């Protein structure tokens, strides 16, 4: 079975500071990797995904993530955050060829002015 661990339940940062949200996964087979963002009272929105190829993936709103197969990690980064980035962020995996997503428990990113 697959599992996803988001190591930080909450991350507070100051505006314009860099941020890294950590995600580790466990799987015995190859997976696709995703980051979703959930703004207050809204549905999940895809930030970025890793399917194959370059391990550095760029997404929307200035976010990027790096797939590290040896460490089974897919950490999300942004060099300079804005107040509008305040949200819950979810890492998810999908077995290649399967359909369901397995999500982590989420990381709440809070931006302080």
């Amino acid at each position: 079975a697959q599992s996803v661990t988001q190591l930080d339940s909450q991350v507070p940062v100051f505006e314009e500071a860099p941020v890294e949200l950590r995600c580790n996964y466990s799987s015995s087979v190859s997976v696709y990797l995703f980051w979703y963002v959930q703004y207050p009272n809204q549905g999940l929105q895809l930030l970025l995904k890793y399917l194959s190829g370059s391990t550095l993936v760029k997404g929307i709103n200035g976010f990027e993530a790096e797939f590290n197969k040896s460490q089974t990690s897919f950490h999300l980064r942004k060099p300079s955050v804005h107040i509008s980035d305040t949200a819950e962020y979810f890492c998810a995996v999908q077995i290649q060829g399967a359909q369901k997503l397995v999500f982590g428990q989420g990381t709440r990113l809070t931006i302080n002015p």
Partner: protein
Amino acid sequence: GAGVSQTPSNKVTEKGKYVELRCDPISGHTALYWYRQSLGQGPEFLIYFQGTGAADDSGLPNDRFFAVRPEGSVSTLKIQRTERGDSAVYLCASSPGGETQYFGPGTRLLVL
């Protein structure tokens, strides 16, 4: 274009009652998914439809939960004899058949 829509946005019911939650996927999307998100948790998979058929219902917690997609578009999640533990946000997603799933805003279910 229009995204995934879900109705109602909020549903309050009493323990033991029956509820139906509706999902309208993005037009043309053949795959449809239901997830459940409890407070403070990530979404958990319930069921996946490819067309009209349930291709994977391994996430349904028990036989009180059932979902249909009779014409391969709109789907309804049905919960019988609701329990307080069923309180959660129920999310629907659709996909054109690739890896990316597009989520709706969810239905917040509260069982009193």
